């Protein structure tokens, strides 16, 4: 049920997500938008270590991971998340400034649900990827 960009049904608990990105401005803007669209941003992280720690503690439903995480690799984070937090596995979605076609093979080879361009980040987009996930 979708109304005005809000994505949840009144009797459902909002999905909780963790955003991993090295750019503070983006984290703030993304958090604001997603909250307004009905997601709960449970936490944010700027690097691999923080991401793993937050994931372990917060047990989010969704993790958004920036592919270009500063000097680190977002795909590495995704792999480690899949390995180290298997219980109640979160759905990992890769995000990037660049476009999906730049990373098609890498995305397909990673334990992730899919990709969202940062400029197209929205609760709806996340929902679509969730629907596809088994």
């Amino acid at each position, binding site marked *: 049920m979708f109304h005005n960009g809000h994505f949840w049904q009144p009797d459902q608990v909002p999905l909780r997500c963790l955003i991993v990105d090295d750019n503070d*401005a983006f984290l*703030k803007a993304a958090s*604001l*938008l997603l909250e307004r669209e009905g997601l709960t941003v449970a936490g944010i992280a700027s690097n691999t270590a923080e991401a793993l720690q937050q994931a372990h503690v917060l047990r989010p439903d969704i993790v958004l991971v920036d592919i*270009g995480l500063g000097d680190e*690799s977002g795909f590495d984070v995704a792999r480690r998340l899949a390995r180290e937090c298997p219980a109640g596995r979160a759905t990992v979605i890769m995000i990037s400034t660049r476009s999906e*076609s730049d*990373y098609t*093979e890498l995305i397909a080879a990673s334990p992730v649900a899919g990709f969202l361009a940062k*400029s197209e980040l929205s609760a709806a987009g996340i929902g679509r990827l969730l629907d596809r996930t088994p």
Partner: protein
Amino acid sequence: MGTLTGLTGIWLTRQSPARRAAAWVLAIAGPVVVTAALIPFRSSLSLGGFFFCMLVVALADAAVGGTRPALTTVALGAAAGAGLYDRSARIAGTDLVSLIAFVAVGAAVGILIGELAQLAGEQASSRRMEAALRRVATLVARAAPADELFAAVAEQVGRLLAADYARVAGYEPDDMLTVISTWTRAGLPFSPRRVSVEGENVSTFVLRTGRPARIDDFAGATGPLAEEARAFGVRCTIGAPIIVEGRIWGVMTVGAIQKWTPPPDIEERLSSFTDLVATAISNADTRAAVTWLAEEQAALRRVATLVARGAPPEELFEAVTAEAGQLLQADQTTLCRYEPDGTATSVAGWRRSPAAVRTVVGRRLKLGGKNLTTIVSQTCRAARIDSYADASGVIGAAARGVHFRSAVGSPILVKGRLWGVVLAGSSHAEPLGPETEARLTSFTDLVATAISNADNLTELTASRARVVATADETRRRIERDLHDGAQQRLISLGLALRAAQTEVPPQLGRLEAELAGVADGLASVQDDLQEMARGIHPAILAQGGLEPALKTLARRCTIPVELDLRAGARLPERVEVAAYYVVAEALTNAAKHARASVVRVEAAAAGRALHLGVRDDGTGGADPVRGSGLIGLKDRVEALGGTLTVHSPAGAGTALHAELPLAE
């Protein structure tokens, strides 16, 4: 008449003591015998007749012994005639006339025949001398081998001068004499040998004075040569110097065991022969020098060719050591490079005999002590060591270990800086010739040129690589700044705008529409920036390497692309970047200019290089010179030490091939 005197002369020149004795016997006994024989016929024989008989004797005497015995006979005959016929009768007028006539005629004829005989003898002698000289000169002219020439000279001189032996010998350094050939009348066999020139004997005198010398009795002579002479019973020996281009090269000696009277002009005669021998030696020396010069030029030319075609250093160094070693007749040559830490590394070596110890290439030895490598490193000039007996240091010991007795070294100076040294060593007792330093320097000059060229090329390549790397680094930075700065801010702005959009109440539809328009505008700017960033630097290479990046290029390309990627795992970054740009440019050209329907891209990492191929079926006609994109690619590829080739015959599609070396 000529034949007669010739024949007579041959016999007459044998001035043997026996014959002289016979002449005097005849001169004195002849008149006596004739007188005694004619006494019984005194009465019937006139004085004239008596004198006629005496005249015959005198003539015979003249023929046998020359003028003096003949005149003696005439005098005795006159006295005998006067005395004999005086007793019997008064000295009549006719008798006086007969006496005077006999004396006059006898003397005249005696003198005449004596002179003729002498002349004939001299003529024959000089003809024989000429013949002997001609035989030797023929050998000289046809450049007969040395041993044949010297043997012939010794024989001709010995026979001509009626000696018992004749010898040709050459002076060596260290006061030694090498006897090259000996002729003996008795035909004794002979082999060349070396003798010390010392003491007082003919050879020593000749060497010291540079003039002919003569010894009539070896009793007082000293030295090994004198002892030898005494052992053989040699009595008289005469030696003449062989002077080649102002230098005393050797000596020719003749001598006799029996009593021997050398002709009075023997020194002149010997000189004629020694002059011929000197000419032969000089010719041979000149020929040898010319031949050697030609060989030197050929060797230097071979090395220069290698330098000119930029042969790899190892090949050049091997060639230099081999050519120099052969030419300078060394037993071993080595090329060493000086290292900054006071050691020298053997870089190449050559040895004449396969049995000798091979140079260990790459061996580093510390400089120091008395050895040529150290001396050259200190003086930066050519140097030599004539005896390794007292060589010291690690290198000196090593040199002795390979049986170096002497060596010459020349430095390799590259742009005024000492780079290394070439050493030529000899295992023989005799050191390498004095011109060896200069000759070796010709080779080291060539080596220095080659190293300088190679250095220049290396510097140039490094400089080009640096230019490309700097440009790439700048582009990377720009892309990152763009990404981290403007692009991120735009994204955040876009998100903020969308967040704002969610707050718009439903009744403000127009506001919502305007906000949506701004959002679209923002998205469009982001897309443009994204495209620009992609053109500046392929940041996606950092994440997955070349293969995913090429696949992306293929996806984006507006015409179908077939990929055959066997590039394996990650490659050096500069190679991946270059390969990406090559394929990107090629695909762009294929899509934009070639109007192709399909493009085939191959990438394979094989051993030392990455091979790239991009082929399209378009119109062809791509010109690397006119298309600036391709020139830029060529520069980039070549700066890495790789190659880029483009085959683009008109109408037959374009095939681009690049090879990028993976090693540094």
